[in-house]
């Protein structure tokens, strides 16, 4: 077996073990602590105790959303950083998250989310997709040729969508404004179980598809011209991956709100420790993203119990500090 394949298996296994441990800790800790040995007996007995309800109705769905959102946002970061060959790119800098936020706010303003549960992620993806289409349309029609200029346009679109988002907030009724603001702060809480499962499936499928394209991402990171001369269908691969990144971001933003920094910090962190080979980076980023967000959520709900902080604040604080530390250390 190829040495790198062995390295990838070992890395993924270790990270999966860490993820499992973090999940167990996240299940046991909270406003009401449940010891780990008691945890298994509660889950095995499946009785209608308060602990069982807390575990199954509140903590487990949160963990599942955490895995899906952390993994998907990290993947979107990995994809965009490879395509744009810029380490500072993530769904937020490109305006994809802004577009998704705009879509979701429109959905909330028209109260569509109360009629159809799936309308929230649908509008999120439409918003994210519109941004990707606008950026790509400019490139396809030859208005913008340079990928770096495309990036700048993405940043501008991000500002525009943020302004439109603020406009919608300022024009909406007070209860809608409250609903949008609450959603904006970012939370892993999702009462609709179907949405949780949908998100998890989309996120895991995203991981599978990105893994299939991992070698192409390696080639693409050499730049458009070199990738072309190595036999890669640059345009086709780039289109598929950009659509995938917008679906992942749109879905995540619509369910968990704006959780910043994950798409930027996690791929960086993974590259610092495991190198730049996307065959390892893709899976490692997915699992590390999941670990990171579950830990941040754990902090958010335990640091000042019974109050709960929005998870987006914790990801920004913790992620930023860890990132600076890792950069200085390396």
């Amino acid at each position: 077996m190829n040495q790198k394949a062995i390295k990838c298996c070992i890395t993924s296994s270790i990270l999966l073990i860490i993820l499992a441990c973090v999940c167990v800790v996240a299940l046991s800790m909270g406003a009401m602590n449940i010891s780990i040995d008691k945890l298994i007996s509660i889950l095995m007995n499946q009785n209608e105790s308060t602990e069982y309800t807390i575990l199954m109705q509140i903590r487990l769905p949160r963990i599942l959303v955490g895995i899906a959102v952390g993994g998907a946002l990290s993947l979107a970061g990995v994809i965009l950083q490879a395509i744009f060959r810029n380490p500072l790119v993530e769904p937020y800098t490109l305006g994809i998250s802004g577009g998704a936020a705009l879509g979701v706010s429109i959905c909330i303003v028209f109260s569509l989310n109360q009629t159809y549960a799936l309308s929230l992620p649908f509008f999120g993806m439409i918003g994210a997709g519109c941004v990707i289409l606008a950026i790509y349309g400019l490139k396809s029609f030859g208005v913008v040729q340079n990928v770096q200029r495309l990036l700048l346009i993405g940043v501008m679109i991000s500002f525009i969508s943020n302004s439109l988002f603020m406009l919608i907030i300022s024009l909406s009724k007070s209860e809608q404004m409250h609903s949008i603001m609450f959603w904006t702060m970012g939370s892993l809480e999702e009462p609709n179980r179907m949405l949780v499962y949908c998100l998890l499936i989309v996120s895991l499928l995203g991981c599978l598809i990105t893994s299939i394209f991992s070698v192409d991402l390696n080639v693409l990171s050499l730049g458009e011209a070199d990738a072309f001369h190595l036999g890669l269908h640059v345009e086709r691969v780039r289109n598929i991956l950009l659509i995938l990144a917008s679906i992942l971001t749109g879905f995540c933003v619509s369910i968990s709100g704006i959780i910043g920094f994950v798409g930027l910090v996690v791929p960086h962190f993974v590259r610092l420790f495991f190198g730049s080979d996307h065959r390892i980076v893709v899976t490692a980023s997915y699992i590390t993203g999941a670990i990171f967000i579950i830990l941040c959520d754990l902090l958010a709900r335990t640091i000042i119990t019974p109050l709960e902080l929005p998870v987006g604040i914790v990801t920004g604080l913790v992620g930023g500090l860890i990132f600076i530390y890792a950069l200085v250390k390396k």
Partner: protein
Amino acid sequence: MKNNEQNVLSVSQLSYRQSSQFQLQDISFDIQKGSCVGIIGPNGSGKTTLLKAVTGFIPLISGQILYCNHSIQSYNQQDLAKEIAIVLQSTELDPSMHVEDYILLGRNPYRKRWQFWESEQDIQIAETAMKITQIESLRYRQLNALSGGEKQLIRIARALAQEPELFLLDEPTNHLDIAHQLQILTLLNRLKHQKNMSIMIVLHDLNLASEFCDQLILMQNGKIFTMGAAKDVLTYQNIESVYHTLVIEGENPISKKPYVFLVSEDNLKKSMTQSKRSEMPDK
């Protein structure tokens, strides 16, 4: 021109336009198997664009490019990458990538649909490419820890891992000291002789082009000004017309190939005054 079957590349009446301005116009030439063709010309004369046109990277307005007597359009992109490799001018490298991983990317054209990991054969070929370019010691180094010359060598090694028949290089000796320039061109010369590889190389240094290339193409404003053997291309008249600069034609004492001496106008005036003075009788 010799027999068509010996031509690895045949370019005829190639034109390329970008925003209403012709970058390449009516370009025709052949490259024979196992020969080295040097592209020379001033900055902006279309040398790099020509290399990119040959690989099909830029869309042409007119003209035909035949690789081994088949149009390059008829080739699948992956198959073409097995035949033609290109080393572009100082492309940015991912600093955290390792040398070995970078060179193994050269095996991408040979990757099967669901193949994620390199085969033993791929690793062996990459090792051979490193051996040929003498960079085995750099194997586990990160790309950000390499010097300019080493980076150029790993770019060449990656292209060699493609096992190409035709090797295109865009100013591979740029920003390198004379030892590295010589090392790279000697390596290319060896590849040409040992593997019968055909080479098309863009060079700025006319003397290096004269020394290492079998045929030269002198370009000006997207057109071929003249082409042929170095002794026919590197003449005083041609160089003055294309580069608008003064040169003196000479000969390399060892290889007996044409050698161009650059002359600045100031030095020329100084030298003429001195010779006039020496001709004047002593009072």
